[in-house]
């Protein structure tokens, strides 16, 4: 994918994917000495290896659509609604209180998974120009974390005898779909990702003080900071201050909730 002529670290994509898988599966902190070795040992990042990673990511995204019918990726459906559920009918009847919040959370996570999958697909198809290796790794890793978040919320629903939520959030999906159709490069995709991550983080934050069960609060609180970490790295990639900020780029010490759904 990369047509970039600028100097960058090039190395073993296999080694890096192994590290990413380790992060995803074991949830362990990354040992910095090992990280340094990985960085120093990188060789041969190339178009083919990136495409392989992207393909695997899309396959992972497709698995989430099971149970929702033929749900297209955003890239393939920029003129269609990804979620066939009306916003007024969501969360489904029968889900009240914490369970309704769980449904909304799962739907937001599903949307994030599909957005990153679609972004990786578009990148694979060469629609976004040069894709920096770090951005490819970011999208693949973050997509995996959102899948885990969705699974966690659906586990809450399942443990309460409710069906899992496999649709994307009907309130946000149309806007994301419309915005995605306008994305032409990696910077545009990163901006869209910032919006999605911000909505998710602020929604969790707003719900933290409203949820009733300790387990739900704990889950929500354990995810909100991770979504904000995603945002920090996105800002860094965009060359912006790497933290919560106003629309004009002013750093914020307190995260707002104005974008919560």
């Amino acid at each position, binding site marked *: 994918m990369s047509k970039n002529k600028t100097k960058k*670290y090039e190395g073993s994509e296999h080694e890096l994917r192994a590290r990413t898988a380790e992060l995803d599966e074991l*949830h362990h*902190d*990354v040992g910095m000495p090992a990280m*340094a070795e990985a960085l120093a040992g990188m060789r041969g990042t190339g178009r083919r290896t990136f495409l392989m990673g992207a393909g695997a990511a899309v396959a992972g995204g497709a698995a989430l659509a099971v149970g929702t019918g033929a749900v297209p990726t955003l890239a393939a459906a920029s003129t269609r609604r990804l979620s066939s559920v009306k916003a007024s009918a969501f969360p489904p009847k029968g889900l009240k209180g914490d369970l309704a919040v769980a449904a909304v959370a799962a739907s937001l996570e599903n949307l994030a998974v599909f957005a990153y999958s679609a972004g990786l697909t578009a990148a694979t198809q060469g629609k976004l120009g040069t894709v*920096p290796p770090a951005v490819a790794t970011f999208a693949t890793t973050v997509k995996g974390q959102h899948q885990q978040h969705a699974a966690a919320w659906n586990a809450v629903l399942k443990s309460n005898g409710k069906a899992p939520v496999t649709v994307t959030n009907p309130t946000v999906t149309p806007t994301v779909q419309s915005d995605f159709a306008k994305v032409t490069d990696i910077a545009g995709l990163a901006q869209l990702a910032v919006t999605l991550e911000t909505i998710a983080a602020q929604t969790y934050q707003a719900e933290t003080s409203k949820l009733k069960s300790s387990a739900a609060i704990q889950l929500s*609180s354990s995810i909100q900071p991770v979504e904000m970490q995603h*945002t920090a790295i996105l800002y860094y990639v965009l060359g912006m201050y790497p933290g919560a900020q106003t629309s004009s780029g002013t750093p914020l*010490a*307190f995260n707002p909730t104005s974008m919560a759904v």
Partner: protein
Amino acid sequence: MTADPRALTELLEESQDLQADALRPTHEALGELVETAHAQREDDAAANLAFHETHTRGLTSSLAGTALLGAAGGAVLVGALASAAAASSSSDVQILQTAASLENLAVSTYKTALTLPYIGGSSANPVVTKFAQVTMGQHAQHAEAFNSAAKSLGGKAQTKPDAAFVPVVKKAVASLGSATPAQGALGVVALALELENIAAGTYVKDTVLAKKETNKALLASIMGIEAQHVSVLLAVQALLMAGAPQLISLSPGTAAMLPAAAGSVGFPNAFYKTNSAAPARQGAVK
């Protein structure tokens, strides 16, 4: 490396103004609590006992799992801190005072770091310098907000750093004196990283323990900010250890040069870990 320091300085100043505005709703919400503070200030004896027992266990667990305190002699601290049996104020006040103590420690640590030539001096990376300045300012605002909330509930402001961590921080700072600039920068980043991680983990955990909605909301509005500090420090640490400090930059085009692993090093866990969290009453005013 090529970021415009003037622009960042302007952002910092603008941020301070905006933060004052942003805090206003928080203060208003806290003000609403004052009316009911007297009725709710002292939790019933059973609740206080349960809180104490839970956090004595939590204290033991935290000390066992925290590298910093392990180095300080965890067993001694367990005994010393766990002996402060009777809760002198409500559990929420203690949570807020502990949070303030962590913020005070962070402020003093960043303040010290900024006196070092490779963090705040002419030889420092300007992005690192400005990050330290902005972050220090944010921690000061967090301390103020936590103390305002504690006072609104009838508690005292915690103006001191968390005593349990102070000796270890002092020791770490002292070791920087003989370090080379490269070693020193890594040492500062490692120390800041650990403090930020403790703060973030503590607040994540305390959103469950806090009883008042406004306190939960305050903790939630800050925990992600600390987690972002962790992300930045993880990325900086990785780039320093890889011998690529030139990539610690907000200039256009940097993303294209970043190693692939830089895309994931800033968020190692899908769910934020709380195993380094400070016990909820550890920094309470005694």
